[in-house]
C-alpha cells in the first residue's frame, strides 16, 4: 500500500514537472545561485557555444551544441558535474553544487528548437 501511494505520488509529480518545464521553445539557462548568468537556444548543427560561468570556486566551462549541453571543466573536487554528461531534454538539469552553478533546460525541442533570443 505504502509502495503504491509513493509510486503514484512520484509519477504524478514527475508528469506535472515535465508539463511545467516543457512549454515553449527549448532554452538552456545557466545560473550561479539565484542569478541567471545566460540563456541560450540550442545552436544549429556544427555550431558550438562556449560559456564560462564564474562560481564560488572559480570558472566552470560549459559547452552547448545541437546535441545538448554539458560541463567541460569545473574547479570542484568531485567532478560529478562533468561525469553527469550531456543533457538535451526539457526538464533536465545539471548542477555543480560546490561551485553553485546550475544548468536547466526549459521548454521542448519538439515544439521549436531554435530562435534568436539570447540573454547574457
Amino acid at each position, binding site marked *: 500500500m505504502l509502495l503504491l501511494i509513493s*509510486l503514484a505520488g512520484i509519477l504524478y509529480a514527475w508528469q506535472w514537472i515535465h508539463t511545467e518545464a516543457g512549454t515553449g521553445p527549448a532554452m538552456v539557462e545557466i*545560473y550561479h545561485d539565484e542569478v541567471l548568468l545566460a540563456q541560450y537556444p540550442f545552436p544549429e548543427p556544427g555550431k558550438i557555444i562556449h560559456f564560462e560561468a564564474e562560481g564560488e570556486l572559480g570558472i566552470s566551462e560549459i559547452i552547448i551544441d545541437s546535441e545538448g549541453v554539458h560541463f567541460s571543466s569545473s574547479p570542484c573536487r*568531485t567532478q560529478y558535474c562533468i561525469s553527469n554528461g550531456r543533457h538535451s531534454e526539457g526538464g533536465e*538539469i545539471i548542477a555543480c*553544487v560546490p561551485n553553485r552553478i*546550475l544548468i536547466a533546460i526549459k521548454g521542448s525541442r519538439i515544439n521549436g528548437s531554435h530562435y534568436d533570443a539570447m540573454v547574457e
Partner: protein
Amino acid sequence: MNRSIPRPSLPALEHKAKWLSLLLLAVSLHVFEAALPSLGPWFKPGLANIATLLALAILGPSAAAMLAIWRVIVGSFLIGTLFTPTFIISLAGGVAAAIAMLTAWRLLPGITLIGVSLIGALAHMTVQFVTVESLFIHQQALYYLLPPLLLLSVFTGWINGGLAAYIVSQLKESD
C-alpha cells in the same frame, strides 16, 4: 584506601559493543559507496542505511539515531569530505531519514522494516534536495531531478529494507 571504579553492567557493555559493531559496518558501507562509480551526482544506493535499520530493530530508536549521525561524521572524515557541501547534504539527508524512520517505527503499528526503509529512503532524497536548494543553489529548477531519483530511492529502499529484515531474522534464529 579502596576506591573501586564503577563497572558498567554486562547488558550495557553488550549494548555498546553491538552499537560500535553496527557503526563500523555503517562507516564501511559509507566509504564503500563513496568508492563506487557514480550513478549520478545525487544518487547513492543507501547501503549504509541497512546498519541504521539493524540498529533500530536490535538496539532501539535512540541508538539508531545516534548511529545515523556518527556514521556520516566518521565516514565523511575518512573519505575527506568533512565540513564540505557534500558532508552537509549527507548529514541533512541521514538525519532526516533517521527521524522519518524512527517516527514511522513508533507511530505506524505493524510496519515492516521494508516499509520503514522505504520511508527513510524517500525522506533522505527529498531533504537532500531541500538542503541544496535552501543552502547552495537557490533555484526551484533543481526539483526537476527529484521525481526520477525518488523512483530509484523507492527501489533501493525496498531492497535495503529486505536485506535488513533478512539479517535480523537470521540473527534472531542464531540467538
